[in-house]
């Protein structure tokens, strides 16, 4: 991967530059402080291109400064008539050829990475075994994000949890207008289109952490408030999180009475659009792990005051144009407070954003999530009949390898 | 000098390009056709992108029939030839004959347009295939409709020219106008060649 760099003479300059650039911005947001494979590769590409550009710029500026100082008309030279040079073929060739070479140097890794980022085939271990792929269906909606973990019966909104030991694959589509999924410190962006195709990309966070994601395609008034989080946790924590999430169901009853009341109100007024527990995407976000959210609705500080305002005003002023304003309910203060109390119980287990930041690392090979992964042999024959009962939608993967993979995994259940 | 332009008789070999104004018109119109090429290309591209996007509505094979299209094609090709005849007579400075052949061209054009309208009505009524039926419908009617609008405009153009100049005959002022109108007519034919190929024939193979 770094072959092209090793021969590059300016490694030192690169290092210095990288150092300067990486001072910029906050680590959870900045593309200049890469914390993911993709972001890091792109960062190298940036540094390479900046070096090339600086070289060009320095050359241009040296000539420029020299010319402007040296050839200014001085007093008494008013009648001086310079030689009217027509051109110079040697020079002209020079400044045609050198840029071409520089551009080729940039073009090679560009093409290489373009293909690498589009490659969604499974990773392989050192031994050549294929790793299990975690595929997440991403749905962008005005102005929030929905995530469904394929085959795991887990769905969330606003926040995705990913393990740090491997790539996670995203299959993305929009429910309304075009959005764009961008987690600057982990990976470049990819548009989320409403047209039949699903875009695919992969994330690989190198460190645990809570990373900010942004919507990067104008999608309406609250485009700037369509943030989400990528919560990268260690594989063991991820496995635990999945299991916890799978346990949750709408019927789980909270302890306190007011919260139970809240739950009823919630069922009457909110469940039409929201869900608790695994669900396909609905009109509003899935609230399974709501109490663990870093932010309310992606951007607001998570406190009862904000939550009260959100439910009371249906977010009208907080997120202009958001689609919860269509909610027909009419609740009084107490009812809202009860709902809040209920919502605050929605915390499925021990794994939450803190797990990404507390420095605890739990290892796992995630095999618990992918039973019978070992047997991924050639015996696909007998699995034929299992195929039909799966929900076919999720297998519309573009790349052939995946759909093969998927159908095998699905049919194992 | 300028008033000379209105005198018929004693015209040069290429009356359409003999004056600076004429030559400007001639060049400008050709360039415009270059731009029109891209305009139609955009429409063709859109059509190609949406050719199978009939949603629940009728698909290409369901509605297209080749008989009518064939007749329309022959009519339009012939009208292209008749307008060449008109220009031939313009170069021979025989205004009457030019008018006659233009008249034939217009008649053929009208026939074409009539068939096209019939075709559209037929699709809408018999197949419930309309502009709003599906993305494919929108693309089809827009592409073919744009062409039809060009035909209609070309006809109005010819007719205006013929009536306006009927009494005074050919001169250096109106020769370029006749000439570019006929260029326009050929261009419409060029577009049709691609329409019958790309839309109808390719839709039926």
């Amino acid at each position: 991967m770094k072959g092209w760099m090793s021969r590059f003479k300016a490694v030192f300059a690169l290092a210095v530059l990288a150092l300067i650039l990486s001072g910029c911005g906050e680590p959870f947001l900045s593309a200049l402080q890469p914390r993911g494979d993709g972001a890091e590769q792109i960062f190298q590409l940036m540094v390479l291109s900046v070096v090339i550009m600086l070289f060009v710029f320095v050359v241009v500026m040296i000539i420029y400064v020299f010319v402007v100082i040296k050839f200014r008309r001085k007093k008494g030279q008013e009648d001086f008539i310079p030689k009217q040079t027509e051109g110079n073929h040697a020079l002209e060739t020079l400044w045609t050829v050198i840029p071409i070479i520089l551009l080729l140097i940039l073009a090679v890794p560009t093409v290489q990475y373009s293909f690498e980022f589009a490659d969604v085939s499974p990773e392989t271990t050192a031994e050549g075994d294929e790793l299990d792929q975690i595929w997440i269906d991403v749905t962008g909606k005005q102005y929030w994000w929905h995530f469904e973990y394929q085959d795991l019966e887990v769905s969330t909104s606003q926040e995705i949890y990913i393990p740090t030991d491997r790539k996670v694959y995203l299959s993305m589509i929009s429910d309304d207008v075009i959005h764009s999924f961008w987690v600057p410190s982990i990976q470049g962006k990819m548009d989320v289109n409403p047209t039949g195709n699903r875009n695919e990309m992969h994330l690989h966070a190198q460190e645990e952490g809570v990373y900010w994601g942004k919507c990067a395609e104008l999608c309406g008034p609250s485009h700037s408030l369509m943030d989400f989080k990528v919560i990268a946790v260690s594989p063991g924590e991820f496995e635990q999180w999945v299991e916890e999430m799978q346990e949750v169901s709408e019927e789980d009853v909270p302890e306190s009475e007011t919260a139970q009341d809240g739950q009823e109100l919630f069922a009457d007024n909110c469940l039409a659009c929201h869900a608790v527990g695994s669900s396909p995407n609905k009109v509003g976000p899935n609230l399974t792990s709501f109490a663990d959210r870093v932010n309310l609705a992606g951007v607001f500080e998570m406190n009862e005051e904000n939550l009260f305002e959100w439910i009371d005003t249906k977010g009208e002023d907080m997120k202009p144009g958001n689609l919860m304003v269509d909610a027909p309910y009419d609740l009084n203060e107490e009812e809202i407070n009860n709902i809040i109390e209920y919502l605050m119980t929605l915390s499925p287990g021990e794994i939450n954003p803190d797990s990404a930041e507390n420095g605890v690392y739990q290892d796992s090979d995630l095999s618990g999530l992918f039973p019978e992964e070992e047997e991924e042999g050639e015996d696909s024959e007998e699995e034929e009949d299992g195929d039909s009962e799966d929900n076919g939608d999720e297998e519309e993967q573009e790349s052939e390898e995946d759909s093969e993979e998927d159908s095998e995994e699905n049919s194992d259940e | 000098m300028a008033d000379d332009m209105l005198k018929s008789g004693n015209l040069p070999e290429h009356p359409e390009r003999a004056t600076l104004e004429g030559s400007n018109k001639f060049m400008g119109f050709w360039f415009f056709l270059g731009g029109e090429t891209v305009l139609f290309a955009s429409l063709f591209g859109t059509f190609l992108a949406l050719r199978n996007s009939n949603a629940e509505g009728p698909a290409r094979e369901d509605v297209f029939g080749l008989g009518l299209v064939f007749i329309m094609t022959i009519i339009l090709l012939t009208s292209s030839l008749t307008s060449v005849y008109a220009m031939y007579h313009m170069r021979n400075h025989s205004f009457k004959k030019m008018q006659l052949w233009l008249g034939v061209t217009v008649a053929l054009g009208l026939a074409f347009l009539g068939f096209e309208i019939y075709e559209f009505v037929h699709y809408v009524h018999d197949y419930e295939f309309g502009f709003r039926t599906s993305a494919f419908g929108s693309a089809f009617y827009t592409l073919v409709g744009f062409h039809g609008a060009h035909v209609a405009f070309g006809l109005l153009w010819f007719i205006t020219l013929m009536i306006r100049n009927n009494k005074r005959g050919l001169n250096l002022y109106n020769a370029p106008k006749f000439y570019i109108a006929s260029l326009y007519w050929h261009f419409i034919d060029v577009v049709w060649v691609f329409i019958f190929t790309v839309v109808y024939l390719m839709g039926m193979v």
Partner: protein
Amino acid sequence: MANHSNINDEKREFYKSRNKQEMKMQVYTFVMMIAFTLVAFGLVLAEVDAMFTIPIILVLAGVQVLFQLYYFMHMNTAGHEWPAAMIYSGIFAAALTVLALATIVWW
């Protein structure tokens, strides 16, 4: 214009016969175009294999268009250098447009 009176009858006769010659070419062109059209329709009606038919009818259409341009629209005569340049530029831009819309709108 300057050359009005210079055109004497002799010249005019010459032009006339030349125009006639040209007109003959036009009619040939026309016959060819009709023939091409017949072939194209025939191929489709005969339900020849699509992989074969589509390229052929596209080529036939292309040739027809060249006929129109060069003969009917006189692009073969002098003074058409710029028109030709612009038409070909237009065709270039048009080809890219069609190519892109037909391929990378990607369903």
